[in-house]
């Protein structure tokens, strides 16, 4: 009896994760084309695609994506950078922790989006609003995870490093940073989500450009398709940044059996 050899493995195929989105898309299409969901509630997918082509051609969409991406990245670098450095300092020094950690924890428990009215009063709808909010949102996950990463390094490894005369920068480069890296990368991945979330909210309420503004502006003219397009773009950008973070994990944590794909 000849058994057909299974070449296609459903669970390892790269297509599998995209099945559900495609099914949802088809359902969306069917529901809107048949009119079960009226056009003034949800546009047809093809209409959104048409809008996509139009706005790409006019350059509006790419301009707005560039503006949003720039804000996201800059806010991420500022907030993430400060969070990383502060996490390092407090992770190393118990004195610094005593001095600063409670303050950080207090600020952390204020939802940063609650500051929107305040920062609008300070800066109007200027770039500062978006940068400040994104930085603040990104700061905490990176701070916490860097701090935790450094505190949870195997003491035995640090002791070993000292026996081998590793000190200062070397100790930091060879032992402490790589040891804290898995935790730091978790922080980065988590903060990327917060980065987009914060930016969307900030652009929706206090901006005159960017994708969030595009969505909100379209509302004024009842351009449902543009709003939906903006939301989809956010989803794709979020997925993209998460994939980059995942790739970073896989590349930087090759040594870790939990991340390494295959190495003989």
């Amino acid at each position, binding site marked *: 009896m000849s058994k057909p050899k299974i070449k296609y493995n459903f669970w390892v195929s790269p297509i599998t994760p995209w099945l559900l989105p495609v099914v949802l898309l088809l359902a969306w299409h069917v529901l809107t084309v048949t009119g079960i969901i009226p056009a003034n509630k949800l546009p047809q997918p093809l209409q959104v695609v048409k809008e996509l082509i139009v706005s790409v051609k006019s350059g509006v969409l790419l301009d707005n994506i560039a503006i949003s991406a720039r804000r996201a990245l800059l806010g991420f670098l500022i907030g993430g950078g400060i969070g990383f450095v502060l996490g390092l300092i407090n992770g190393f020094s118990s004195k610094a922790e005593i001095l600063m950690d409670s303050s950080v924890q207090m600020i952390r428990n204020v939802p940063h989006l609650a500051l929107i009215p305040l920062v609008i009063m300070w800066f109007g709808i200027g770039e500062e609003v978006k940068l400040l909010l994104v930085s603040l949102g990104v700061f905490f996950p990176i701070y916490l995870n860097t701090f935790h990463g450094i505190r949870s390094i195997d003491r035995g490894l640090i002791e070993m490093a000292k026996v081998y005369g590793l000190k200062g920068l070397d100790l930091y480069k*060879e032992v402490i940073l790589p040891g804290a890296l898995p935790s730091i990368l978790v922080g980065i991945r988590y903060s990327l989500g917060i980065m987009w979330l914060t930016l969307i909210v900030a652009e929706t309420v206090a901006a005159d450009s960017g994708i969030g503004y595009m969505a909100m502006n379209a509302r004024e003219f009842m351009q449902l398709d543009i709003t939906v397009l903006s939301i989809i773009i956010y989803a794709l950008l979020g997925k993209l940044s998460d994939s980059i973070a995942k790739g970073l994990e896989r590349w930087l944590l090759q040594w870790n059996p939990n991340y390494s794909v295959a190495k003989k």
Partner: protein
Amino acid sequence: MSEIGKGAMLCLNHVRKYFGEKRILQQVDLTIERGEFIAVVGRSGCGKSTLLRLIAGLEQPSEGLISINENDPATSGSGHTRVLFQEARLLPWKTVLQNVRIGTPGKDKAKAAEALNLVGLSEREDDWPHFLSGGQKQRVALARALASKPTLLLLDEPLGALDALTRIEMQQLIERLWLEQGFTVILVTHDVSEAVALADRVILIEDGVISLDKRIALDRPRERDSGFAYYENLILNKVLGREEPLFQRTAGYTI
């Protein structure tokens, strides 16, 4: 026996160690000759690991003095003391060879490869430590410790977690490298038979003092014959308090 002169000489003078109120080491006086292989045995909690940590400079004695190579300033310096811990303590984010390079002066690649060759793991140099067995990890740690040609090697129960066969292999490897390179070794272990198999001198620590300092006058490589059994029993009896004089003394205290 081992080459004389390459190993470090060690002098412990009235060394005491307290942790708060608790006395870990009451008073230790000990001289270790160049190139000697010393085994320190004792029950867990007797202070033997603390003694090793003091010699390694990982902790400071509360009282007393530890001097290494006091007669020869040219070879003194803590850079020549290496420790092998109970766990291999390899950096998981470095390959086997990179781990060994940490032990070499100036991260010398050739010296690291040479040390790795000594422990027979050259072909694994590009692997992550995660893919090695426990015994292989300890061999890499041994290569790392030996890569800088230390004069003093401190072994803190490095074979305790290995299976019996790997353990014997590691013992033979350590003995061979010690004979070849002539460094001084202090091995802390709770395994009396391991101590007798490897050491020139076995030191027993009880309640923070040296209660036995026995030279093992057996030829190498050591066979587990009657001579071996004699030393093993002698030390075990002392550890377990089965010795005649101990009973007499205990009886003597009763009024």
